[in-house]
């Protein structure tokens, strides 16, 4: 029956039926099924973990249990696996805690404000350290008790320095042990290549090791390790390697070769103790403060002196006519002064004739025209150029002239004074004008008019020396020239012929006229411009100032403008 049914299934489903059967068997068989699941379990977990956190939740208790049972069985195993990450983690956490502590301390100390804390604060600022670090360093004490110079290769002690307080037990062996200990630690903890033991510590005693290529310095310190000890050690080591290169390289065990390093090593020994604060007068501070006070006092005095000097200088400049002080500024020992300077004023450098020793001066000058009378007068003087006999002065912007002045200059001048900036009027009341040409003309006229030409009775001809005529004609020509210059007009000379009382008036008139003509002709012949001369006969001889003579004379027409 069963087989029939299966045969029917076989007929209907064909090969698939076999496969279905196989699949069922696989699922029913634990071994086979787990094989199938194992193929996809990782992928399945991955898929699921993308969807939610259920895997972690489900697995957590199991893992917890697994770990605790693992620790119960063999704690070392887990410790070993964790060791590489625990070390750094612990170090980090310690350093963070320390940092935190320092910061807290910092805060605490920041609030205290004693003179000492001020000094530390200053030191902190100076050295770039944190304040708290400095306080720690300052409050702790230390003492470098021993220093070992050890030959690195053989660990033999080359030199040993120690303070009286030091408890020195067989330094030779100690020196060997330092390197033995280093070897021991390296072996036991298989540290990295190049890692070196640099500090050993027992209670408050430390050994600071510093290594050079051929020698090692070991310093035994009680208390805090001084901050610069390591620097000091490496500096000393370096210099030793420099000075004793060969001796160190093949040290044969004879320390005498290094007897002279004693001083170098001795320098490393030092101690610092926090003595209780003594109430003594801090002389150093007192003296420094006094010096500072004296210094600032003197400095103040100097700068006060200097400022006085500057003020005086500025007021001199202010008072100088033609200079207008605009601004002054003092910086870096240079006094900058900007001012307006009239071209006719004295230059500021001239005004400050004294030499400034404490500072230098820089001028910035702008030109301007001053209307101060003194400056206006100077300007007028330059422009008008009066002669030495003329005094020039400016009073309240009025040009006051006095003394004597040439008429020509004065004429010019009248047109030019308004060009002088700062003048509003001119006063020539006290000025005497002089006209030299006019004076010369007056003289010439006198000479000319004094000339008389005598005639014989009834005659119209006369003998005159040619010298006399030449001189006279020259005089006339010059007078004319002066007149042209002075008045712009030619001179006019009347030639007047006189007679005596004898003869009839009409005859006399005729004779007089001819005599005049005759004189005129002589003058013209001698070179006098004809147009200057005009001949007349004197009419009323009796009334003519009593002149009743046989003469001819010259009368110059009044010289006026």
């Amino acid at each position, binding site marked *: 029956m069963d087989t029939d049914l299966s045969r029917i299934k076989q007929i209907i489903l064909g090969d698939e039926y076999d496969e279905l059967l196989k699949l069922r068997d696989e699922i029913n068989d634990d071994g086979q099924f787990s094989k199938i699941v194992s193929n996809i379990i990782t992928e399945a977990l991955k898929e699921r973990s993308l969807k939610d956190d259920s895997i972690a939740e489900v697995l957590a208790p199991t893992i917890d249990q697994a770990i605790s049972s693992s620790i119960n069985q063999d704690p070392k195993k887990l410790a070993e696996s964790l060791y590489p990450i625990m070390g750094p983690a612990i170090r980090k956490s310690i350093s963070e805690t320390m940092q935190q502590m320092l910061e807290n301390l910092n805060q605490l100390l920041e609030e205290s404000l004693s003179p000492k804390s001020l000094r530390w604060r200053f030191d902190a600022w100076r050295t770039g350290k944190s304040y708290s670090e400095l306080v720690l360093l300052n409050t702790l004490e230390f003492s470098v008790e021993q220093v070992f110079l050890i030959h690195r290769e053989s660990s033999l002690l080359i030199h040993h320095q120690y303070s009286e307080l030091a408890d020195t037990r067989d330094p030779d*062996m100690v020196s060997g042990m330092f390197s*033995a200990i280093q070897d021991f630690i390296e072996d036991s903890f298989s540290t990295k290549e190049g890692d070196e033991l640099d500090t050993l510590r027992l209670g408050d005693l430390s050994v600071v090791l510093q290594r050079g290529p051929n020698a090692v310095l070991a310093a035994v310190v009680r208390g805090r390790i001084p901050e610069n000890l390591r620097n000091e050690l490496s500096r000393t080591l370096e210099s030793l390697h420099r000075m004793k290169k060969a001796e160190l390289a093949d040290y044969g*065990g004879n320390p005498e070769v290094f007897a002279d390093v004693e001083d170098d090593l001795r320098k490393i020994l030092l101690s610092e103790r926090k003595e209780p604060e003594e109430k003594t007068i801090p002389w150093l501070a007192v003296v420094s403060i006094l010096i500072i006070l004296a210094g600032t006092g003197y400095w103040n005095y100097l700068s006060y002196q200097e400022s006085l000097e500057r003020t005086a200088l500025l007021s001199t400049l202010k008072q100088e006519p033609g200079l207008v002080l605009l601004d002054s500024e003092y910086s870096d020992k240079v006094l900058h002064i900007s001012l307006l300077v009239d071209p006719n004023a004295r230059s500021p450098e001239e005004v400050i004739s004294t030499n400034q020793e404490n500072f230098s001066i820089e001028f910035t000058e702008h030109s301007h025209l001053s209307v101060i009378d003194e400056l206006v007068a100077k300007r007028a003087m330059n422009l008008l150029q009066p002669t030495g006999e003329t005094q020039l002065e400016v009073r309240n912007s009025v040009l006051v002239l006095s003394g004597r002045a040439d008429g020509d200059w004065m004429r010019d001048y009248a047109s030019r004074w308004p060009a002088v900036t700062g003048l509003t009027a001119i006063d020539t009341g006290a000025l005497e004008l002089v006209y030299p040409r006019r004076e010369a003309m007056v003289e010439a006229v006198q000479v000319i008019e004094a000339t008389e030409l005598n005639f014989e009775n009834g005659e119209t001809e006369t003998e005159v020396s040619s010298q006399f005529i030449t001189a006279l004609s020259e005089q006339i020509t010059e007078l004319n020239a002066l007149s042209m210059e002075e008045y712009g007009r030619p001179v006019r000379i009347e030639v007047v012929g006189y007679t005596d009382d004898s003869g009839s008036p009409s005859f006399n008139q005729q004779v007089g006229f001819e005599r005049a003509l005759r004189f005129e002709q002589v003058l013209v012949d001698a070179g006098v411009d004809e147009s200057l001369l005009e001949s007349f006969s004197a009419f009323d001889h009796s009334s003519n100032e009593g002149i009743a003579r046989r003469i001819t004379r010259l009368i110059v027409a009044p010289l006026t403008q």
Partner: protein
Amino acid sequence: MLQKKICLLGAFSVGKTSLIQRFVSSLFDDKYLTTVGVKIDKKIVTVDQQEIMLMIWDLAGEDDYNTLNKNHLRGAAGYILVIDGTRPKSLDVGLAVHDKVKEALGDVPVVVALNKADLIDEWILDADQLAKLEEKLPVLRTSAKTGDNVELLFSELAARLQ
């Protein structure tokens, strides 16, 4: 004063520590306390009217678990190779150590101590091997227990240090 570093080498329990203790402090102890790492002692010897301070490095003996630390050998001016006459194995180990040291230090002076001479009746060393060794290296029969040849052992080496 001249200082020299020397080492005592050899298999474990051959009497290195005992020899040093005898030489330095004139003491002997029957108890066996194996040396871990290194221990350093010193003693001044006189060679040709010249004093030399020996810095004596007592190293842990070689065995199956502990091999020689070459760092400890650095700078040694010479060494004493200790062999226990009652233990043939210590001769093999000693010879192996000798080769190693040669490699590390080059040709430095060595003196061999055939130790526990007070137990000479119990010695079971191969005579041939011993003869060969004596040909190659200076050998002294010593006893830390009685002090036999101990002083000589160290001064022999000291004399060989240049």
